[in-house]
């Protein structure tokens, strides 16, 4: 046994370094490679041109999610360029022998929703995908991060990646969240404290009693947004909640108890040292709303839009002013006075069954405001079916929400689901960048419950005072 105490990251890293050729970056073995249509075509083409194969197709899983319609799946895809990208994924998967959860497959969905849901994601694994929100999978105690298309090609060809070991950052959250405050609020709050680049060069491990209390899906919401603080990966040590979630899932290990015995050795050793530690109090968090064009530009629901001219850092001052300009907001405006045109409940951050349950419980017995167009896009086919079994689709439909098929949808608006210029949206997704949901569109990031309440009242509303029916 090595005597130096190791963190979760150290343990996973050490277990996956194949070798470090002299003068080169380490070669890290990759256990699971998730693939979607937007960042893989050029990688498969590269393999083809070089006459290379996919080294371990059985460790590679693909699904179309980013660029697909969320309307009736029996209709053909109207946009020929989108159709070509999805056809290309199909052809590549069949040519290279990769398992594809295709449109029409009952298990299709957002890649970061279906990985954990199917048990493809497991503790202790290294997981990559050509998508920055791969950090989501770290919630199960895996080292999971996004890569570019050239790296996708590298993983396809070698089942490894060239990587320098990142630094470790412990974000310890003490205490507990107040009622009405969710994992989404917590992570937005943490990003606001850290800044969009506070985690650059680091892998975040979320620790502390407040994190331990979170359920599996809430942990996914937290890890999902690690990249918004600049960290390529976020992780949470596996515990009984993780094991209970995984047991019985399609791709979970056959000899589950033996696997659990292995996984129980993963959490960091007592005394293991992080490169950096930051400590926060769960009780300090209130429901959050972003006011600007990056996720760190965030305040509590009870606050006002800040005045960026008062910011000390010149970069922040400049980007804050640009943001208010773009968002059509003035400093000093109460957050609860901001009216909305659209509400989007979905994305790999908040489209799982618990998110839909939370939103539905707010909406039940109410109608969407006449000024608001609201939609719910479940994260996967499974989530959708589960929600329908529970009657949640009826709750949403009765209130006037649209109920869609699974996909990324208006999280990035590559498909027809987009904002019109100037439209203001309360969104449960993860990025409020300029034009993210449609050119000229204005995105405010919130939790599912806050989005649901805003849909009903037509403006941001403090969910802590909601009258549930």
């Amino acid at each position, binding site marked *: 046994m090595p005597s130096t105490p190791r963190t979760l990251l150290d343990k996973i890293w050490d277990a996956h370094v194949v070798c470090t050729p002299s003068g080169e970056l380490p070669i890290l073995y990759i256990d699971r490679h998730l693939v979607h249509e937007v960042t893989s075509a050029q990688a498969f083409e590269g393999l083809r041109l070089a006459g290379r194969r996919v080294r371990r197709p059985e460790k590679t899983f693909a699904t179309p999610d980013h660029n697909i319609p969320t309307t009736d799946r029996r209709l053909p895809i109207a946009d020929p360029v989108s159709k070509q990208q999805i056809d290309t994924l199909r052809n590549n998967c069949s040519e290279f022998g990769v398992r594809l959860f295709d449109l029409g497959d009952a298990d299709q969905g957002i890649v970061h929703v279906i990985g954990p849901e199917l048990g493809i994601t497991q503790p202790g694994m290294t997981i990559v995908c050509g*998508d920055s929100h791969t950090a989501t999978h770290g919630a199960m105690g895996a080292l999971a991060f996004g890569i570019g298309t050239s790296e996708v090609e590298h993983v396809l060809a070698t089942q490894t990646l060239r990587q320098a070991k990142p630094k470790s950052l412990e974000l310890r959250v003490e205490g507990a969240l107040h009622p009405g405050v969710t994992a989404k609020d917590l992570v937005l709050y943490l990003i606001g404290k850290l800044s969009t680049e506070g985690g650059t060069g680091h892998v975040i491990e979320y620790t502390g009693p407040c994190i331990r209390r979170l359920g599996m899906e809430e942990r996914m919401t937290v890890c999902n947004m690690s990249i918004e603080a600049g960290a390529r990966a976020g992780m949470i040590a596996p515990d009984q909640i993780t094991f209970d979630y995984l047991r019985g899932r399609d791709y979970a290990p056959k000899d589950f108890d033996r696997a659990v015995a292995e996984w129980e050795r993963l959490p960091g050793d007592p005394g293991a040292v992080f490169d950096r530690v930051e400590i926060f109090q769960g009780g300090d968090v209130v429901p959050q709303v972003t006011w600007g064009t990056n996720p760190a530009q965030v305040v509590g629901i009870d606050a006002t839009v800040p005045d960026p001219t008062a910011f000390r850092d010149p970069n922040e001052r400049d980007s804050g002013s640009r943001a208010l300009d773009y968002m059509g907001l003035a400093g000093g405006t109460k957050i609860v006075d901001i009216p909305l045109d659209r509400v989007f409940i979905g994305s790999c951050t908040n489209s799982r069954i618990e998110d839909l349950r939370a939103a539905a419980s707010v909406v039940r017995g109410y109608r969407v405001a006449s000024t608001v167009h609201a939609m719910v896009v479940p994260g996967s086919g499974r989530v959708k079916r589960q929600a329908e079994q529970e009657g949640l689709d009826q709750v949403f439909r009765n209130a006037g929400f649209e109920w869609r098929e699974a996909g990324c949808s208006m999280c990035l608006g590559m498909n027809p689901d987009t904002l019109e210029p100037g439209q203001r949206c309360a969104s449960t997704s993860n990025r409020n960048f300029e*034009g993210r949901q449609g050119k000229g569109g204005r995105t405010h990031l919130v939790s599912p419950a806050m989005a649901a309440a805003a849909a009903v009242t037509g403006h941001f509303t403090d969910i802590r005072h909601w009258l549930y029916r």
Partner: protein
Amino acid sequence: MQPFVSHTGIVSPLDRANVDTDQIIPKQFLKRIERTGFGQFLFFDWRFLADGTPNPEFELNRPVVAGSSVLLARRNFGCGSSREHAPWALADYGFKVVIAPTFADIFFNNCFQNGMLPIRLAEEDVDELFRRARVAEATGSPYRLRVDLPAGVVTDDAGFSRSFTVDPFRKRCLLEGLDDIGLSLQHTDEITAWEAANAAPAEG
């Protein structure tokens, strides 16, 4: 990949922090299945007005920076999505070097994969470069920088000189235009041995 050894070019200052990959290449252009031809879409929503004509207000559209190949930016350049379309668009537009105080991790890695050199300089040095570019442009001539990768220095012809560091492996790959997949495949035996030793009970 084209080797990168040294480069001299016109500097395009882009005085904004947190430039995200959604701005570098908006999502409507991610549907293409090629690696090439993305330059025309670079900074699309900033670069073009609603009617499709170039936005005269946008920094890169100023005539004085026409033909530029060195992009100068502020903190956290390339944050957001992992889309390699961002470096593809920058490279296709003609950029060979991006200089900023800090970069987002995935974007930073993606640059090297495309023969483009991202250089981190201290914030005050970046300030100084913005200042020098403004001074040069005020006289109507573009500001030029020279980047020497083997020596690891950026210089102008008016006395600015700063050294920068690059990971030795990334540096070698750039200098020699190496395909890192090819390099990793030289270690196939080790990869196979790792797989044999780790045929985990966790395999479902």
